[in-house]
């Protein structure tokens, strides 16, 4: 550090003292709106759970709660990856297609006798590779994320169709104990998909909050040029978030393949929208730079509780869709109000 001893600046401070500089802005608003801002989504989730459990007490049974977590694990993992991407100001539309492609490759490999112990790491690597492809086009070739991932979404879906001939790979968990464990297994009664979800969440949370990389993700979303001139490796960070998104999609692909005991070539369609919805409900700004992974977890749970709860209380699928859309809209409106 610089040697500041002996500097005669102390006097200057007194001479130049003037009144506070924060003009035109009232100090941090009342505490109530601060609380809302921090925990608004949690409160919303709580209210939702309350309403549904009043309408049907079965909702709050341990069995059903674990079931909700099992159901949200796939959207959750994808949404976590999507959070990184969106925080940099980007978007990844190819997540569903990566899920389908990696799931199909896994299914075909296992069906042709490759041990799942080898196949699973390989498809995770494939997810990373597909994400890297997105990332390089966006960070190095400097194309828009929306367009790149829209194109690769279509490309990856095409590859899935080519390698599968449009036919599902069936019965693949029979001789694959590890793969089977991904959806059916549990540890101390907790479903394995839920454990994956929470462990990955903790890991990504640490990466996002406590590493230089994580701070860089926020900084790029805040202002990429400032981040670059502050000597952050912006290109590398941007590529990396798409790799993370790719790996998360592949991991979700493994879980889905395991759950269905088969690989569906059309799996994953529309998953990108659910993931983006969860991120947005969780309060992350689509412009980048602002948001939290915890918010995304809550966003994922809100969507999961809605899906599960509306089923339990017997709301028809058509209404469910409408209500889901409405909730997204409400979340964004509330978020905007509280950040004013």
């Amino acid at each position, binding site marked *: *550090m*610089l*040697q*500041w001893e002996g*500097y005669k*600046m102390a006097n*200057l*401070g007194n*001479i*130049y003292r*003037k*009144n*506070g*500089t*924060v*003009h*035109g*802005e*009232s*100090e941090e608003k009342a505490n109530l709106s601060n609380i809302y801002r921090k925990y608004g989504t949690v409160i919303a989730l709580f209210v939702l759970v309350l309403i549904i459990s009043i309408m049907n007490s079965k909702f709050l049974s341990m069995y059903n709660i674990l079931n909700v977590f099992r159901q949200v694990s796939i959207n959750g993992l994808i949404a976590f990856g999507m959070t990184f991407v969106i925080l940099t100001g980007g978007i990844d539309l190819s997540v569903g297609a990566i899920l389908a492609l990696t799931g199909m490759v896994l299914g075909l490999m296992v069906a042709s006798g490759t041990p799942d112990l080898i196949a699973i790491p390989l498809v995770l690597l494939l997810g990373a590779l597909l994400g890297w492809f997105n990332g390089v086009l966006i960070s190095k070739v400097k194309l828009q994320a929306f367009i790149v991932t829209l194109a690769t979404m279509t490309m990856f879906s095409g590859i899935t169709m080519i390698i599968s001939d449009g036919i599902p790979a069936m019965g693949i968990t029979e001789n694959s104990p590890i793969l089977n464990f991904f959806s059916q297994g549990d540890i101390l009664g907790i479903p394995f998909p839920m454990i994956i979800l929470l462990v990955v969440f903790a890991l990504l949370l*640490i990466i996002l909050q*406590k*590493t*230089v990389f994580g*701070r*860089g993700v*926020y*900084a790029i979303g*805040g*202002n990429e*040029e*400032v*981040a*670059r*001139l*502050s*000597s*952050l*490796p912006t290109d590398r960070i941007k590529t990396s978030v798409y790799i993370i998104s790719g790996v998360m999609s592949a991991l979700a692909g493994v879980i889905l393949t395991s759950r269905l005991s088969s690989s569906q070539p059309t799996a994953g369609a529309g998953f990108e929208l659910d993931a983006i919805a969860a991120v947005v409900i969780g309060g992350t700004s689509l412009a980048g*730079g*602002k948001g939290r992974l915890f918010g995304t977890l809550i966003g994922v749970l809100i969507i999961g509780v809605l899906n599960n709860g509306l089923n339990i209380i017997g709301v028809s699928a058509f209404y469910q869709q409408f209500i889901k859309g409405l909730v997204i809209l409400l979340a964004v409106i509330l978020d905007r109000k509280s950040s004013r």
Partner: protein
Amino acid sequence: MSGICKSFGAVQVLKDAGIHVKEKEIHALMGENGAGKSTLMKILTGVYTKDTGDIEINGELFELTSIKDSENKKIAFIHQELNVLNEMSIVDNMFLGKEKKNKLGLIDKKAMVKIAKEKLQMLGLDIDPSTLIKDISIGSRQLVEIAKALLMDAELIIMDEPTAALTDKEIALLFKIIRELRDKGVSFVYISHRMEEIFDICDEITIMRDGAYIGQKTIKETSFDEIVSMMVGYDLDERFPRIEISPGETILSVKDLSQKGKFENVSFDVRKGEILGFSGLMGSGRTEVMHAIFGSTKFDSGEIHISGKKVNISSPIVAKRMGLGFITEDRKNEGLILDFSVRDNMALPSLSSFANNKLIEDRSIRSMVEEFIGKLKVKTASQEISVGKLSGGNQQKIVIAKWLITNPKILILDEPTRGVDVGAKKEIYEIINQLKKAGVAIIIVSSELPEILGICDRIAVMHEKKLVKIFNRDESTQESVMQYAAVGGI
């Protein structure tokens, strides 16, 4: 306007503020950042509503409650960040929200273009009104804003720091136009930090401090010192503090640096404990050279040596590792993430040095930031406040602190005091001097000649992409530097 008071929440921003502008007058409004100039003008233009006080226009009391009200009273406000849409044409910008319509209720482009052309020609601007804003210079955009004001027959035009981004030539043209309009009966409120300009163009001056009206002077009867002491509330003894030390060995050596279209064969050395100034007109290539040295843009040929060794600075990441720091010219787009907190901004370039086993230690960041807030006298309520809410001077100090935390050996400062008030300016000079004393090699790019002459040890002058002359401090005068900057030689 008199006795204007305005509070935001518990903070009283204006107390008994006012300004009295006569017809056919260019009236300067001066005060340090945060003195309340902008708030007062926003009240006059109906953006904010006053709490108490009177606004009289042509002798009649008025309540201005909306921007429309103010427009009806023929008051126009030209903001520092020009209010033009870059992707739209000049004519569309001029008529935005006031489009001329034909009988069918459709937009009458032809009529609009005709009027636009007229108004532009009045300002001596001979360009096709269908040109897109992004394709014309900042100076011309400024004039488009004036043309827009003329369109509504403005009788009072408020200009906030109109020359901040203009070249000297454009400034001269702008001033000529302002004077012509004044003689035709338009009055101006002219907000600027540049004292020389105020003395050049204004007739009257009103000074504000801490939200209050301090006094009004006739420019011809006042002096620089008087205005400054009214602004800061005490006498500012020395505008450019300087310390004399003998510089150490050469640390940065730039040889024949060239980039096509940007700069040619630029060579210079900087020694430890030395301040090298870079003077020149806007667009002479100074900023581009600095970006090339810092690795944020590429160059075609030439060499950079640091401590005698040839280095390849391929990116800002490498530059930081080599001990370089770069305080960029454009605070809002290159220096700070305005939504981010003081702390997050300050720690940005040095994050990795706060990581222990890859995990960032927030506690050490917090104490480091606290230390620098104290050292640089940053006036902020806390580390968590977003920097966008601070005044220009405090923002600039945060950009400086960002790089001081990285402990640079070579520090480049591009326009370090632009948009910064007089008091904070001097504080920044003090900081620079202390760095000099600590043996840091410093490069300052500045368009303010008095500043360059006041604090630098040597002065490099650029003219049309070339470095034409390096003066020693004792052989440089305002005239000689200007001569080289303007024509490249004697």
